[in-house]
């Protein structure tokens, strides 16, 4: 006898539901934190390799304890708040950057369904904290909130370099959010859902509905290559990675918006940067590379895709110089935005015709 799995609900099995939810939240949160810590290590090692140097190798075996040492060091540093800074906003800003970066993880499906029996009933647990029916919109909204943190940090520091950094990031994030946001509209048109889980499931169908091609994954990177490119470029700009790291531009603005920050607050900015990198990689893996689908066990596929993206971002950082402010605006508004609009129109026509 095959049992149909039941979905956990708060009303029928409140304790089990709460327990499973807490478990998922802890796994996702701790997992992200760990990846954040070791993303810094990986970045330093990989870039070190690319730049013919060693990277961290003294703290622990192969330098593996370096992230922990860095964290401890920053934790014990003196926390300086400039006397002319706006006290409340200055403290709030780093949190306002970090929180949205982590919240977005909540709607990302990191694996398929998990089945287990409890008390004689078979239950089904989706490996995702919550499956919002407007998951993608939620992510875009959270990314928008993250900008406030940088702007606030720039303004509250009451320093001219920070101010310039804040202004740059406002302009940059607004322009690139538009391009990145519009590029994924084409995905919704194909998947006909905004739920992240739904989008992954749509990518598990045979490509273009042709059964004989079922050996090819129906990942949207194949049907929407332009949207993929636009999304990657746009999100790179949104998370301030090279070549779009203008808000912090160390050599121009002396680290821009985080010039005046020290100790743990400074560390929060860096954690946010890496958390954002993970979020963006996870979104890209979900929307374009079929999420947890692939040859291995669910979440392993997903992690491989996320790490591949992060490697790509690190690689880019070792390769490219930084764009200039006006060139960045030009690229955002006059190249990426028209292209993403054109992509939507073309996708629409294609859907109408077939």
């Amino acid at each position, binding site marked *: 006898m095959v049992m149909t799995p039941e979905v956990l609900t708060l009303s029928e099995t409140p304790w089990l539901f709460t327990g499973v939810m807490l478990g998922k939240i802890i796994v996702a949160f701790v997992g992200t934190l760990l990846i954040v810590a070791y993303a810094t290590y990986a970045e330093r090692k990989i*870039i070190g390799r*690319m*730049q*013919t*140097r060693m990277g961290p190798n003294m703290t622990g075996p192969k330098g593996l304890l370096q992230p922990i040492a860095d964290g401890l060091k920053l934790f014990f540093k003196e926390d300086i708040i400039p006397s002319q800074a706006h006290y409340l906003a200055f403290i709030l800003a780093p949190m306002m950057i970090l929180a949205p970066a982590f919240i977005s993880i909540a709607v990302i499906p990191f694996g398929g369904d998990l089945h287990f029996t409890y008390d004689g009933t078979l239950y089904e647990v989706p490996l995702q904290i919550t499956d919002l029916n407007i998951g993608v919109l939620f992510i875009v909204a959270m990314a928008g909130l993250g900008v406030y943190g940088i702007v606030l940090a720039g303004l509250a520091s009451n320093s*001219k*370099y920070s101010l*310039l950094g804040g*202004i*740059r990031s406002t302009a940059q994030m607004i322009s690139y959010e538009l391009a990145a946001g519009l590029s994924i509209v084409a995905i919704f048109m194909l998947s006909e859902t905004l739920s992240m889980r739904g989008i992954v499931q749509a990518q598990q169908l045979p490509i273009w509905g042709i059964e004989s091609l079922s050996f090819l994954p129906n990942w949207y990177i194949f049907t929407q290559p332009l949207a993929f490119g636009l999304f990657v470029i746009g999100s790179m700009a949104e998370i301030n990675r*090279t*070549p779009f*790291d203008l808000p912090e*531009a*160390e*050599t*121009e*603005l*002396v680290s821009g918006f985080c010039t005046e920050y020290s100790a743990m607050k400074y560390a929060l900015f860096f954690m946010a940067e890496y958390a954002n990198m993970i979020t963006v990689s996870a979104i890209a893996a979900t929307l374009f590379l079929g999420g947890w689908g692939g040859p291995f066990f669910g979440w392993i596929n997903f992690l491989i895709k996320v790490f591949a993206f992060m490697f790509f971002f690190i690689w880019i*950082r*070792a*390769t*490219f*110089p*930084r*764009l*200039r*402010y*006006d*060139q960045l605006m030009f690229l955002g508004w006059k190249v990426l935005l028209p292209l993403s609009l054109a992509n939507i129109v073309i996708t629409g026509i294609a859907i109408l015709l077939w």
Partner: protein
Amino acid sequence: MAANTTETMTINMGPQHPSTHGVLQLILELDGEIVQKATPHIGFLHRGVEKLSEHRTYHQIIPLTDRLDYLAPMSNNLGYVLAVEKLLGITDDIPERAERVRVIMAELTRLKSHLVWLACHALDIGAMTVFLYCFREREHITDIYEKVSGARMTSNYFRVGGLSEDLPEGLDSEIRAFAESMPAHIDEYEGLLTGNRIWQKRTIGVGEISAEDAIDIGITGPALRASGVDWDLRRDNPYSGYEDYDFEVPVRTNCDTFDRYKLRLDEMRQSSRIILQALDKLKPGPILADCPKVVLPPKQDVVNNIESLIHHFKIITEGFKPEAGEIYQGVEAPKGELGYYLVSDGSTHPFRMKIRPPSFVNLQALPQMVEGKLLADVIAVIGTLDIVLGEIDR
């Protein structure tokens, strides 16, 4: 109706700023990100080299010159010793081997200085990898420096009348291997930068200065040649036997940062050519001129020969006395024309020494090159001018 008022923001760029290449302070008046006015303030690294020189014997000044352009110490040494030799009238007595070694070291210095320039210029514009690649090669040159003079940066290697020591055994083949590998390394840097669209966008048309303006200001070196003026002291006013070598003086005409970048890379290729030619022509021989009143005798002679002992004693305790007169000697340092103007009153130390540092003169072009441009261009222009504050402030 409230009137819209706009204000410019004055920003202090430096002296503590990662991209001002030392302790340069720029007072920038910004309208948004556009630079309205740029005023360089210098003097934070002033050590009074010119004044100190007036109380030292001619030989004691050589270590001071190391610290002018600390990225190219041997070029500074060379300019100074050539000036003193000219003042003494012993320019023609310098042995051939000493001149060849001087050229080899001067061109290695050019490579060293240009490598640091490219590294920092690229890093300022955001390309981090080039920085480390360049420093990898620079490390070889510093190693060669160390083997030759004992010091990695402040070499103090040249002497009035020749060199302090001969090249250590086997070093010529090491230098040859390095000079032969250099063009391939330059291609590697070019592979990362030249064709890169972002690099091109950041450098083409940025920091332009016309040939007329460049001449009016007195710009020399790569910045002048990238504005289309074919002027190189090594060819047009040769010293140390530069006329014996077959090399080209690269000239470009677009006057912008990209052309200065390409031009310096071409210069580096030519420098490796000169080094290889000089190594080919290098023959065993004396490394010091036969001028006992000026040049210290070999240690062996000092203990065996009374005349040598007296000369040694006189040179060490008192120094030599050039005839009263004045002299100017310019050399093509990596950054431009480095000139020494010496006035002698017949005593053992110069009455006056005036240094014409190329960076100091080239820096004057900065306001003209950045006004009306963006903040990020200021960084690119500081990088492309290749200034060193040790030389500007002296």
